[in-house]
């Protein structure tokens, strides 16, 4: 199964992620 988040945010929003990395519920996805 998959969860897709789609949202608007200020243009300076940046993800601190890498494609393929493991992630756990509660960990941050990005910063403004």
């Amino acid at each position, binding site marked *: 199964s*998959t969860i897709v988040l789609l949202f608007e945010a200020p243009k300076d929003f940046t993800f601190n992620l890498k494609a393929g990395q493991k992630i756990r519920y509660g960990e941050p996805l990005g910063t403004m």
Partner: protein
Amino acid sequence: RNPASLGLQARVRPLPILIATGSGYMGYDQYGRYKDRELESKGIEVPPRIANEAQVALYKTIPTRLLSRAWGRLNQVDLPTWLRKPIYSLYIWTFGVNMKEAAVEDLHQYRNLGEFFRRKLKPQARPVCDSHCVISPADGKILHFGRVKNCEVEQVKGVTYSLETFLGPHTWAESIALNRNEDDPTNFQDILVTKEGNALFHCVVYLAPGDYHCFHSPTDWRVAHRRHFPGSLMSVNPGVARWIKELFCHNERVVLSGEWAHGFFSLTAVGATNVGSIRIYFDKELRTNLPRYSKGSFNDFSYVSNNNQEGISMRKGEHLGEFNLG
């Protein structure tokens, strides 16, 4: 040369032809993948091999919804106590489940695999990050993320799907009462962005079979609308996501949309073959993976009503829903 042996010969003859063509095709396909790996090892970027329409149509002929419901029925059968530990231990070993984080570690407590699949975690197992406004809603693997461009969303690098097909027509705005920016929006993506200086972002989290399969609110927001798309239940593992374009638009999914501090926000749970059912805890009406549905249909439900103009308020990290087997 009696009729029986002729009949047998007639049946047997196509078999070697099928095997020969099938293995010939597999060999050709594997050789192509080998060539791609060669090029990638030389640093040459190779576009992903996308399934053509015939291959997708062939895949969609597999009765994945029927298989999924049968799998779910099987996993609702209570196991005898003595069989629980060996079965669940095999599942734990196969999919690398970490039972130390489970709220209930004793395997005998789970009456069937469906219940084991819905296991909860110890509250302290997943501290919710306070210093960031958006957190991961679930355990899993980040398939892709980034800004949405030209109304196309990438399911994995280089393989996209249409934003409008995925979310459906923008008729939920009334229930969110989004105060959109004045100038007339040029396309679907612009309609979703309600504030000047904002952009649209996406993030795809893939939950593997051994992952904790409940999901939580990724931020503080209010959920105003639910759109349920019945659909296929093809596998969504990264290999298939790289192979089938628009995969997430084919599969059964539940789109929750609403608003957060910066405007539009949505979370979509996409089902898969072994995980055909989606539950949203505050939505008792929702029924997924039903035997009958009309292709391409969807049904809407608004959480905004006369006595609840706000919709459903969700706090960051709050329990939101779960995927179920079958």
